[in-house]
């Protein structure tokens, strides 16, 4: 093994921890619809996704390095900067997991990297046009593209199947859904595990342990693949619940249309060279499938909270990354302080999550009552527009108290 300093060791471990959070944060992308429609049992779903993530990690090394290439100036990047970036990304991933909101792990990582780089080398080292073209625009485009595709596909599907017996067709759609979910898992493994490989390789280069332009060493590929698979297997049940149940109610046919559209968008976009975030695509396609069924509902309050989290992802991770970079600037004890802070706050978030456990047993229950953080986010978002009525229960005058009733449903004609 190469010569690895203590600092470099810390960076590598932190990168693997990020990979792990990435895994459990993004399980929802592949498996939320599969779990909520009952196509697979929750445990089976995450196990399948984890296995495919692991396989995906070994398929190629081409994507490694793409996360950092072009976005920030690589020359003169120090291991401390990467460490600070990872701290920002991990904390944002954990906070959004706690409130059960799907957000892009890639954006969190890029945000952390941007923030740490600005704190370290000034704003000049960040390529703003790349930021807009590769991060912001795709974030807006992904849910629109995937949502429209899923909506049209769902509409057509219901029209074509006409009066077909739902009991007989259910099994078919489940099989189709599992295939699409498998594709998303595989694509996730090749993309996101390689981002971590890229980060670790970058850190090794920055620390002088391996030569520039090296391919990731085998142990890096192996550990990154295992870390993301473990995270996926643990399952981010909170996010799965929001994505599978919180946004809309999915029937097997809709789940199939949503997952297929998402898989198509993800593969088509990365093939054509305009990469769209997996999380944004899946969220969009779930909403599109919700709108595509006659009488389907989309809970715009949940969607709005999700959108707010997306907007905040980059700046929030950047802020934490910048702060962490500033503290590491004080030398060894600064770095140690940041490491302790990361461990302590991760533990605190985990403790907080134990107050209301969400796991494979209650992942398909209706949405949890909003917690403190969720309410805080709901309070800063505008109330959902439109008449808020619920077909099954009495009409609730929700617009009068939008923050008290954030899970109110907005019926879509």
């Amino acid at each position, binding site marked *: 093994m190469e010569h690895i300093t203590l600092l470099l060791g810390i960076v590598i471990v932190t990168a693997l921890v990020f990979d792990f959070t990435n895994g459990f944060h993004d399980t929802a992308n592949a498996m939320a619809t599969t779990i909520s429609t009952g196509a697979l049992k929750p445990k089976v779903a995450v196990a399948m996704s984890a296995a495919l993530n692991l396989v*995906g990690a070994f*398929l*190629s090394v*081409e*994507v490694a390095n793409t996360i950092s290439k072009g976005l920030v100036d690589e020359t003169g990047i120090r291991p401390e900067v990467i460490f600070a970036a990872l701290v920002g990304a991990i904390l944002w991933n954990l906070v959004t997991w706690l409130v059960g909101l799907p957000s892009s792990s890639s954006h969190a990582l890029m945000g952390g990297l941007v923030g740490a780089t600005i704190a370290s080398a000034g704003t000049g080292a960040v390529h703003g*046009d790349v930021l*807009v*073209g590769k991060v912001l*625009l795709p974030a807006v*485009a992904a849910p629109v*593209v*995937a949502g*429209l*595709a*899923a909506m*049209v*596909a*769902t509409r*057509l*599907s219901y029209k*074509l*199947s*006409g009066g*077909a*017996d739902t009991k*007989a*067709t259910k099994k*078919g*759609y489940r099989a*189709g859904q599992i*295939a699409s979910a498998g*594709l998303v898992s*595989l*694509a996730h493994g*090749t993309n996101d595990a390689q981002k971590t490989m890229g980060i670790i390789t970058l850190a090794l280069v920055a620390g002088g342990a391996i030569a520039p332009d090296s391919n990731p060493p085998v142990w890096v590929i192996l550990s990154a693949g295992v870390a993301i698979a473990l995270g996926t297997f643990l399952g981010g049940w909170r996010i799965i619940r929001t994505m599978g149940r919180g946004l809309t109610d999915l029937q097997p*046919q809709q789940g*199939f*249309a949503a997952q*297929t*559209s998402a*898989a*198509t*968008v993800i*593969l*088509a*976009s*990365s*093939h*054509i*060279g*305009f990469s*769209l975030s997996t999380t944004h695509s899946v969220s969009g396609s779930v909403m599109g499938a919700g709108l595509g069924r006659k009488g389907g509902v989309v809970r715009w309050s949940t969607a709005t909270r999700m959108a707010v989290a997306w907007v905040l992802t980059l700046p929030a991770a950047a802020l934490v990354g910048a702060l962490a970079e500033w503290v590491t600037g004080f030398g060894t004890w600064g770095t140690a302080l940041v490491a302790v802070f990361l461990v302590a706050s991760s533990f605190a978030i985990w403790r907080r999550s134990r107050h209301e456990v969400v796991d494979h047993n209650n992942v398909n229950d209706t949405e949890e009552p909003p917690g403190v953080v969720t309410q805080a986010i709901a309070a800063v978002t505008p109330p959902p527009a439109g008449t808020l009525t619920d077909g099954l229960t009495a009409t609730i005058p929700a617009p009068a108290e939008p923050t008290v009733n954030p899970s109110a449903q907005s019926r879509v004609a």
Partner: protein
Amino acid sequence: MHIDWSALGSVFGVSLGISVALVALFTLGVAGLSKKETAQGGSAVAAATGAYVCFAACAAAVAYGISLIITK
């Protein structure tokens, strides 16, 4: 600032086209299979054949998807 609108446009078009086509094909396949159970004689055979053709096309699309992931 350069934004690759044509790439975005083709992602949009290709995604929409393929998603809708795949979901439609699969729906026809599923509907065909359920029809097979209720229909009799020649129409049942026709429905089943049609269904399997649809599923084969979907399987081909999945295989192409996997090849895209691997060769990236």
